[in-house]
């Protein structure tokens, strides 16, 4: 074994991942070669110091200011979420109120045949519903319903809409912009596929789930940016 081959295997020797045969070859060379033995000792010192480095943490220049920036951003997001929730609730309640108000405030004037027909329709409806429910209960298996299998797929209408808009606008972009977009999109898609593969292997892996969510939100962000260009 020459020095080049020996030095190429030094890292694996230090990490203990060489086969017995390789380790024996490298060991014999190191016994004879002072230069390679010196490199091995120096790499070993680097690895040992690196293990210690983990325990030394550094504080940011101004921890308090960093916390204030973080908490301000979070508070702003929370306030925005609350405003949006309040607006949605107001819209929903006003819609409900208007439908209810219209029904309650309407003046109903029905003739006797109309009233009889309405009652008959109501009776038939209730009877049909009862029969259907009883039959469904009989058909249902006595065991507990099984949970659907874990299945993940990317089905996001917003994403589709954004993608369509981007495709429409692509024609107007210059080649550099198109290249930048394609590069960014391929990187994000790679991350999405990677996370999906991981989730297929271990469906309950929290981190892969987060990574997937991250990648999807970055994809949306990217598409939003380029959809307006």
């Amino acid at each position: 074994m020459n020095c080049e081959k020996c030095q190429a295997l030094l890292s694996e020797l230090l990490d203990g991942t060489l086969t017995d045969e390789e380790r024996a070859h490298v060991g014999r060379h190191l016994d004879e070669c002072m230069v390679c033995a010196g490199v091995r000792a120096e790499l070993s010192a680097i690895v040992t110091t690196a293990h210690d480095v983990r325990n030394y943490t550094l504080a940011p220049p101004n921890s308090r200011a960093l916390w204030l920036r973080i908490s301000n951003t979070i508070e702003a997001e929370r306030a925005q979420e609350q405003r949006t929730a309040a607006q949605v609730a107001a819209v929903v309640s006003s819609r409900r109120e208007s439908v209810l108000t219209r029904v309650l405030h309407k003046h109903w004037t029905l003739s006797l045949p109309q009233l009889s027909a309405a009652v008959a329709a109501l009776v038939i409806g209730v009877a049909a519903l009862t029969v259907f429910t009883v039959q469904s209960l009989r058909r249902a298996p006595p065991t507990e319903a099984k949970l659907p299998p874990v299945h993940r797929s990317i089905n996001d209408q917003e994403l589709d809409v954004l993608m369509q808009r981007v495709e429409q606008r692509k024609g107007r972009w210059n080649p550099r912009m198109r290249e930048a977009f394609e590069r960014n999109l391929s990187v994000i898609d790679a991350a999405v596929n990677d996370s999906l593969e991981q989730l297929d292997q271990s469906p309950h892996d929290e981190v892969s789930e987060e990574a997937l969510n991250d990648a999807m939100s970055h994809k949306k962000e990217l598409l939003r940016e380029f959809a307006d260009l």
Partner: protein
Amino acid sequence: MTPESILLPRSAFGHVTATETEKTQVTDYALAQAAAAGDMPAFEALYERHHRRVYSLCLRMTGNTAEAEDLAQEAFIQLYRKVGSFRGESAFTTWLHRLTVNQVLMHFRKRGVRMEQTTDDGDVPVQVVQGTENPASMPVVDRIALDRAISQLPPGYRTVFILHDIEGHEHEEIARLLGCSVGTSKSQLHKARMKLRGLLRQQNPPQ
């Protein structure tokens, strides 16, 4: 003192009095649950416990204080958004560490940072140490010198070295995080170590 054993500095839960809280060691999991329910003091306690580790990781991976601060800020904001999904199946520190690494790698991807990789036709070859080199051994490596040398590594080498030798990840996990093969991860680690050896010799040439 480990992050898990730090006493909570102030009341983090509405239903626990300040005195009771000061006497109680609150676990990261309990704080995470409280933070998920919107308890900001609980989230602040998590920040107090872990911000140094998060910032240090960002700083080592980027080699730039301003970028590291921005990434640490982003990591904690992400933490707040996702803390509800932490189910306590792994240690909180491990979970937060992976979240931070993902954040930094996503930042690198956005910025288009080139992750040095070994291609079939070969790129940056490792310089073989010849007998002509100064035979005196490298001066004793200390943490500060190593940190300085790490900051001078190319981003791809730096990332693999930090993830493997400092943070203790296996090559399989690094390969998954970086989207490369295990062989590439091993090769980049070796190149990073050899490069560091050269940088440390330059910092303090052997007498």
